């Protein structure tokens, strides 16, 4: 493929209509694996979280994890799905050492949840994404390819396998094909994964971290001429960030349009997305469903969720993130754009909790999206892990409102709070950061500033009140910022008879 002949995205999309589809895998945050009691925490020395069941040793028998079933049903309900009243697990057979049993326990023609939808907002419009199915399976082990120069499988002579991840409950969420999004297809794909992540996070069933692989995404894309039948689709794997979801669809639309415009045909295949280049490259030829020789898992009895239990789970669902955002946006009086920046910063809950702790929405938003977001960005961490709690931010604002801290001192106090030096009040006292309210000390500083700047003082005496700013600055400097600027200004004007 010669990159020089590729069209721009606008050129590519002009002659075609895209159809997209997404398969998302979510690792559940249960304590134990899907079919055995091994722990699931991230990390750990290789092959230390394994037992006869997840190693597929002879004579071992799997037993399904009730918490994982419940979490999957809750995801299905949150995505407006119907919940099966009876379904079975199935064996998916394939020859690869990432599963020691030589098959993966999954679900095939009887998924736990079917036929739902998720509404997402794109460009001010609501797009309804159909959900085909939500099913439960087990994650695979991690393979490391060695012996070659690159560490990739091509050229490698051996694979080293760690089965700690093998058997962790994995929920697969498959959309129906999404036609009709036109040029917005890449943004719709991204908005869907973003919203899905919010929904699942809201349920508290997974930490949904794309960078740690607890949420993984495969993107299907096809193109057709307007009025024609849908085209042949490709499946792009290895899409590991929200930005990549959007880029993968965009890249695939450009690549496929170039093939089709050149008179070529799209081959149904698996392609791999490269985070570095944004390109997709062909992967292995996909085994067809019949090659997996699915059959009902004989070691596990069928699932038949009690409708009354399912109904109680439905009633206990949290408010959908989209409704919640709308409610919050109205109560905080934010514009769409401001709300979007709060959502993008991952600050909705933090601001909500700060408001609950007594701060105004405006003040809470100011600290979280300003000073704290800046520190989180610098450290390359989530805002929630920045080191300050909503209660501390509310306390900080109380100190500002009561005049004990000014804006500048408050920022220094945040530094101490984030560094773990204690509550805002403790940091303020320990570091001696409170605003100087001792009028005697302030008056001395004011007199000093006036004496040092006779020209400015004269201007103020003549009624040029705006010139007082220079004197305020001088006082702030001698008090190391620990004075309240408004009080200083009043004192100066009073001293110079200009008030």
């Amino acid at each position, binding site marked *: 493929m010669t990159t020089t002949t590729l069209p721009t995205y606008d050129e590519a999309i002009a002659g075609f209509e895209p159809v997209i589809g997404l398969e998302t895998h979510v690792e559940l945050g249960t*304590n*134990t694996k899907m079919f*055995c*009691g*091994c*722990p699931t925490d991230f990390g750990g*020395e*290789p*092959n*230390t*979280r*394994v*037992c*006869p069941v997840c*190693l597929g*040793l002879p004579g071992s028998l799997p*037993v*399904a*994890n*009730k*918490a*994982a*079933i419940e979490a999957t049903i809750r995801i299905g309900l949150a995505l407006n799905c119907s919940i099966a009243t*009876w379904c*079975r697990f199935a064996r998916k*057979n*394939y*020859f*690869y*050492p*990432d599963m020691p049993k030589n098959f993966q326990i999954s679900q095939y023609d009887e998924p736990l949840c079917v036929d739902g939808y998720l509404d997402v907002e794109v460009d001010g419009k609501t797009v309804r994404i159909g959900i085909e199915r939500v099913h439960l399976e087990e994650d*695979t082990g*991690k*393979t*490391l*390819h*060695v*012996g070659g120069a690159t560490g990739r*499988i091509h050229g490698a*002579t*051996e*694979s*080293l*396998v*760690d*089965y700690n991840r093998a058997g962790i409950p994995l929920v697969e969420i498959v959309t129906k094909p999404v036609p009709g999004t036109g040029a917005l297809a890449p943004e719709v794909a991204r908005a869907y994964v973003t919203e899905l992540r919010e929904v699942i996070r809201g349920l508290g069933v997974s930490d949904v971290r794309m960078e740690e692989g607890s949420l993984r995404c495969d993107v299907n894309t096809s193109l057709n001429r307007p009025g024609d039948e849908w085209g042949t689709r490709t499946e792009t794997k290895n899409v590991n960030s929200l930005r990549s979801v959007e880029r993968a669809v965009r890249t695939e639309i450009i690549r496929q349009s170039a093939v089709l415009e050149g008179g070529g045909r799209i081959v149904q295949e698996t392609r*791999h997305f490269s985070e570095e280049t944004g390109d997709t490259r062909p992967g*292995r*030829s996909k*085994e067809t469903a019949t*090659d997996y*020789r699915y*059959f*009902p898992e*004989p070691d596990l*009895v*069928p*699932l*038949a*969720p009690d409708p009354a239990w399912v109904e109680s789970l439905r009633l206990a669902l949290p408010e959908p993130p989209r409704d919640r955002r709308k409610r919050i946006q109205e109560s905080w009086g934010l514009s769409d754009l401001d709300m979007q920046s709060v959502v993008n910063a991952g600050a909705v809950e933090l601001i909500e909790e700060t408001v609950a702790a007594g701060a105004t929405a405006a003040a809470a938003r100011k600290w979280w999206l300003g000073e704290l977001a800046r520190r989180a960005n610098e450290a390359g961490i989530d805002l929630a892990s920045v080191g300050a709690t909503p209660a501390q931010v509310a306390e900080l604002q109380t100190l500002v409102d009561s005049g004990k801290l000014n804006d500048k001192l408050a920022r220094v106090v945040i530094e101490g709070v984030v560094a773990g030096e204690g509550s805002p009040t403790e940091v303020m006292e320990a570091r001696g950061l409170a605003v100087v309210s001792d009028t005697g000390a302030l008056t001395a500083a004011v007199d000093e500033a006036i004496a040092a700047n006779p020209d400015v003082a004269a201007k103020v005496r003549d009624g040029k009140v705006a010139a007082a700013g220079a004197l305020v600055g001088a006082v702030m400097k001698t008090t190391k910022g620990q004075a309240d600027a408004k009080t200083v200004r009043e004192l100066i004007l009073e001293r110079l008879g200009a008030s």
Partner: protein
Amino acid sequence: MAAISRDEVAHLARLSRLAVTEQELDTFAGQLDVILQAVARVGEVAAADIPPTSHSVPLTNVLREDVVINCLTREEALAGAPDVEDDRFRVPRILDEEA
């Protein structure tokens, strides 16, 4: 008509990574055909009121509480491995497939 063709047996052998000679393909295709025909006779006696059965015991919802148990030690886990490197199971590469 045969219940399984020689080509299907060859395909299954490839999926299972089994090296099967031309002569063995003839033998296995014949043997598997006899087995499948015998099993298929069950379908002849199953009346319309007998649903397909995947599990012989009429049980549902055998579930486990989400409680951690003791794992094997790494030494125990790797004891049966044909080969070990860096505390991992060491196996020959599988070509043309990617995890």
